[in-house]
């Protein structure tokens, strides 16, 4: 180890002090890596020795190249004579290939698990970008951004890979992407140009990680086109092209569409993308309606109700804010009302969205009544928490669409309406509602009645029952605030019950007729005595 360090120092001195004739020592320095690269798995944070020596070596190399660059010896266009040109070209080549590609990119791409070395390499690489921007311009002080270098980094990150490099992406986003506006601009444009190269493998089209990386890069609020984002520039003199916002937006949109076309996006990733869609993506796109296909696919291909509903939420946003025409929206929403809907974890979120979707007073009566009927049908198997959140929603809907009141009150069947009632009282009423009809406009729910709610008036929980009874009372209340009812579940209900103060001693009942004499039956069937439970024995 000490030897190595001494070697490195020796080479360094010789290169810096020895002048051009010792420049070949650079190659010797780069060769020093070989002894570590035999077994990449050894390079991890536990091997402190190896890590520190590699880091030292890299650091020294960067220092050398920096000194050279400062002497403008890495820029062939600055050469004054032929000899120099040859030398500079050679130096540039070693810099590009031996240092950047074989060391920095190599470590960024190939280390399997999270380690500090690749993070350092990322830092060095970005320093290289800065270095190139200052010294590689055609003239001193000319505006220049080394976009090809950045492209290399992008492809190294987004290349098809077996390892999860999200720590690198996060580091890149935190320290560079979120802070510097020029990095953002060139990142997006270079990403776009990479994506346009159809047959290259520089950018993976279908990858299980890329969507996550892309999500990490876009899920924040300090973007190029954000008005209140406080952004710096990374290089000292960026080109003026950078101010072309249209170009950025275009690239951003293209890149989004490219990322979303990834076939390997998981449901979880879909969910997280869909949740930020309306806030962080749609406003930045030039044509948000381009996302319609993506959302429709999301809805149709996913078996997860949550994804489907979130996709519908995105579509609703597009319809609501960007004038998207989407005639099948309510048809699709209606299809979501399956038996499992009210038993999901995200129930209250769903109900909030459903409330939002159905809030318009311009929906047709057939449609609204179908939703009401379907929801109340689902209540027959729902938990008290779901019941208490749906009932106020139904109340609000009935209040909003008074024509639907016929579903809870059919004047024809009031016994006081003698003539009308006499005509129908002996006839069996055939429920016209078609449960299996997929189109809410055609289900004919408006001619049905909400027996389900009437049944819930005898719910076992006294408070739920009395909440159901609001449909029996005059509809005097203007509206129910849904938020008050959304957060009930078994636990809170039980807590409430157990908190109740004891006012009356609990009543006992030992009626032999209804309860029998014993808890359970005997094992043998000959036992004829009345017992509490009939199908259970001790």
């Amino acid at each position, binding site marked *: 180890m000490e030897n190595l360090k001494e070697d490195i120092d020796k080479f360094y001195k010789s290169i810096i002090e020895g002048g051009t004739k010792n420049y070949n020592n650079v190659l010797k320095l780069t060769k020093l890596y070989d002894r570590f690269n035999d077994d990449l798995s050894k390079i991890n944070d536990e091997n402190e020795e190896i890590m520190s020596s590699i880091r030292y070596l890299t650091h020294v190399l960067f220092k050398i190249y920096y000194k050279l660059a400062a002497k403008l010896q890495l820029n062939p266009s600055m050469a004054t004579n032929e000899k120099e040109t040859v030398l500079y070209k050679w130096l540039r080549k070693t810099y590009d290939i031996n240092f950047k590609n074989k060391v920095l990119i190599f470590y960024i791409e190939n280390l399997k698990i999270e380690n500090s070395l690749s993070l350092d390499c990322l830092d060095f690489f970005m320093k290289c970008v800065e270095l190139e921007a200052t010294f590689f311009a055609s003239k001193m002080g000319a505006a220049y951004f080394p976009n090809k270098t950045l492209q290399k980094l992008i492809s190294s990150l987004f290349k098809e890979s077996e390892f999860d490099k999200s720590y690198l992406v996060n580091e890149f986003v935190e320290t560079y992407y979120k802070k510097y506006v020029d990095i953002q601009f060139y990142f997006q444009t270079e990403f776009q140009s990479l994506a346009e190269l159809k047959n290259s493998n520089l950018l993976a089209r279908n990858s299980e990680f890329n969507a996550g990386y892309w999500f990490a890069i876009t899920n924040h609020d300090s973007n190029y086109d954000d008005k209140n984002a406080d952004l710096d520039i990374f290089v000292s003199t960026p080109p003026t092209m950078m101010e072309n916002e249209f170009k950025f937006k275009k690239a951003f949109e293209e890149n989004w569409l490219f990322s979303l076309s990834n076939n390997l996006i998981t449901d979880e990733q879909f969910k997280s993308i869909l949740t930020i869609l309306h806030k962080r993506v749609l406003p930045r796109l030039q044509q948000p309606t381009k996302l319609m296909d993506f959302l429709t696919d999301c809805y149709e291909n996913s078996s997860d109700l949550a994804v489907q509903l979130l996709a519908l939420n995105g579509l609703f946003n597009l319809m609501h804010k960007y004038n998207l025409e989407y005639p099948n929206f309510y048809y699709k929403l209606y299809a979501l009302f399956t038996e499992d809907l009210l038993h999901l974890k995200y129930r209250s979120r769903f109900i909030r969205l459903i409330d939002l979707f159905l809030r318009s007073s311009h929906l047709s009566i057939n449609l609204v009544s179908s939703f009401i009927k379907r929801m109340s049908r689902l209540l*027959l198997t729902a938990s008290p928490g779901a019941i208490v959140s749906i009932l106020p929603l139904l109340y609000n809907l009935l209040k909003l669409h008074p024509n639907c009141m016929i579903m809870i009150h059919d004047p024809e069947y009031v016994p006081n309406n003698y003539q009308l009632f006499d005509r129908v009282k002996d006839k069996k009423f055939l429920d016209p509602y078609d449960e299996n009809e997929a189109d809410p406009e055609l289900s004919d729910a408006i001619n049905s009645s909400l027996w389900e709610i009437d049944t819930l008036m005898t719910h*076992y929980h006294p408070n739920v029952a009395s909440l159901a009874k609001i449909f029996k009372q005059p509809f005097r209340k203007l509206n129910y605030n849904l938020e008050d009812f959304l957060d009930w579940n078994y636990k809170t209900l039980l807590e409430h019950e157990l908190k109740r103060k004891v006012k009356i001693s609990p009543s006992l009942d030992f009626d032999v007729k209804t309860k029998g004499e014993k808890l359970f039956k005997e094992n043998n069937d000959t036992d004829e005595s009345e017992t509490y439970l009939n*199908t*259970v024995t001790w």
Partner: protein
Amino acid sequence: MAKNSQLQKLKSKLKENGLHGVRYASKKSKQKAKLSSKEDETRDDKIQQIRDSMNVFDNTAKSHKKSNILANANLSGNSKTTEKRQLEYETKLMSYNVNKANLNKNNTFKDNRFGERGFSGLSEEEKTLERYKLEQIKQFEEQQREQAQDYTSMKGGRKSKKTLYNLEDDDGEDDSGMFRLTHGGQSLFDNDVIEAKNKRSRNQYEQDGVAEEADIPRKKTKKEVMQEIIAKSKMYKQERQEKQNTMNEQIMDLDEDFDDILAELKTTERDSIKQKREEKSESKVENNIEFNDYDSKVKTFQFDKRAAPQDRVLSEQEILDKEEEEAKKLEKDREMRMRGIFNIDNEDEERLDIEKLDEGFWNDESEAGEGEDADVPDSDDDIVFDNKKVISDNVEDIATFECPGTHKHLLTLLNSYPIEEHVSVLKKIISSHQPKLAEGNNLKLETLTKILFQHLQFSVDTMKSNEDVKILDELVNIFVKLITKYNTKLIEFLRMNIQSLQEKFEQSHDSIIKPSTVLFFTLVGFVYSTSDHYHLIVTPSLILINEFLEQLQFNTVESIKFGCMLLEINNKYQTLSKRYSPESLFFVTKSIDFFISEKVPNIRSVEYKKLSLIGLKSEKINLSNVLLNLMLNIKQSLDLIWDQKTAVTEVANIVKSRLSNLAIKYKDVSEVSSELETIIKSLNVVIANNMHHPLILQDHKLISIPLVTPKFEDNFNPDKRYNNDLSPQQNEINKLKKQIHKESKFQLKQFRKDSKFTQDLRTKEMITDKQAYHEKMKRIVNVINTEEGSERNMYEKEKKLRQGKK
């Protein structure tokens, strides 16, 4: 010739009456005329008449319409404006003169002793009292006057209300002696005076001899009779009062002297005792014995049991009736609770409470637990077992048992006995700790109840299925006995149990699939009245049961078995109240789905067997058996609960579609398929029987809306003001306002009139003053002039004379 002018009219009228133009020719006739005074009077009358007729505007006729007939009955219909004015003028003048006389005079004496405004040393209250008194006097005087009128006119019948009141007032006033009504300086109510007066009057009549009727005793008017009676009663009353007063005084005297008397008595008593003792020692022994005998006899009689009727022996029929009645009462109570009315004694209060139960339940979360106050049925009844004979001889003496304080303690205690004797040990513990035996036993038994509960759960979890389970039944019996007594004390304990179940369930869903959980719910259902609208223990238990039914993953035989048991318990809870539980339907669908799914292998038919509680986790049970039990429970819930609901068709459809799928899968297993068939059949029957009429939830009583169309007014008069929408109160207020306005206007007018009057007088005075001054000056000037003139004349004369001389 038309007589147009006023003067001509007057002249003609005078002529008509012979007052004009007739001159007495001679002095003689004049004298004659003077003599005939009668004629003179008529003449004056005539002149007055003519004057009146000529001066039409002087008379004001009162409108009879407005004025109160009664009030004006005795007044003449007309009054003269001039006279009135004259009167007014005079009073005003008088007051003006008085004021003027007092003006700018500091040394005048103002008597402020009289009148309200003056210094009278009366408080406001006293003033009003005084006013009231005066008013009363005035009224009384008026009444007297009326009486006098009645008396003369012998009308009698009319009797105003005031007289009625006065009867009473007389009493009070007379008693207080504030004032007395007098007539000619003598009291009106003094009997003697009245009599004397009567006598006098009679004498007068007799003496006069004018009226013969005076001889006949005059019939007293009702009023007089009444007054006499009153006067008499008053006299008696006074007498009585005097007597009372004297008596009181005497009593007071006695009271004062009582201490002295007492002191004296005491000394005498002591003396007498001494004397007695002396006597006793002397007296014979027999006497003493007799005395003691009497005492003891009294005592024995006191304690003698008196003959009392025993409770009648009831016939069998009567006993049955009584039982039935009791059962009916219990049933009625239960029904009340089911409808949410807790306590029949203070029904209203509780009814309010049940309504409050919902208020703010969904929005308001802060419901701080206040002091717990339950009406504790604190009886010191013993816990009596029917079969006391069971206590076997093997068990040691009662005294050796201690009441265990923890479950561990109980276990160590029971360990030393064979399992068959556990029950008798427990019974012994209880009987040796009857509450009446020692203080603190109540508390010990209370903890024992809890321990027993824990023990039941413990043993049901640990027991092997082949062991004797009869003991558990016995334990349950003991527990039930205990819980009836310590019902209220156990609330917190059971709540804790529910809480811990919930916590365990949160940690791991499968951890609560235990026999003890089922036993807990069964016991709650067995002991408590599960049909109550709200129950401290049952409602939380129901929430738990349903939570388990909804949130458990029913994908193992074990969990399905557990669910089946919970489903039956749930059904049992609702046997009477028929409340709907969505979760049980959910469980039914999920479990049928489980049986339909591929996971369940096709099963062979087996003999039906009940589910075993103890074997819930361990016993390998045939799946078809579970399915059969599930079927039974579905049928039970259909019969018990779903059948009653309006949405039974919907429920049945949800179940039916799945069951028919199941039937296809199990068509080879004869028992299952036949069971399925019966259920599907009964579902079909239910669907067919349900009329399924649409709901009429909003069939409320119609409420009338206030009419807003304007009222049509016949003979509408644009000048008249119609304010139909004013309330009567508003109307009244408006009337009063108008009156105030009118009166204030009138007052202003009065003030102006007054000030104008004084102004006029003042100017008049000024004018007279000035005139007097000018006259005076004139006179002086005249005097001077005359003096000077004469002097001048004299001078002139002298001058002339002197000139003449010259």
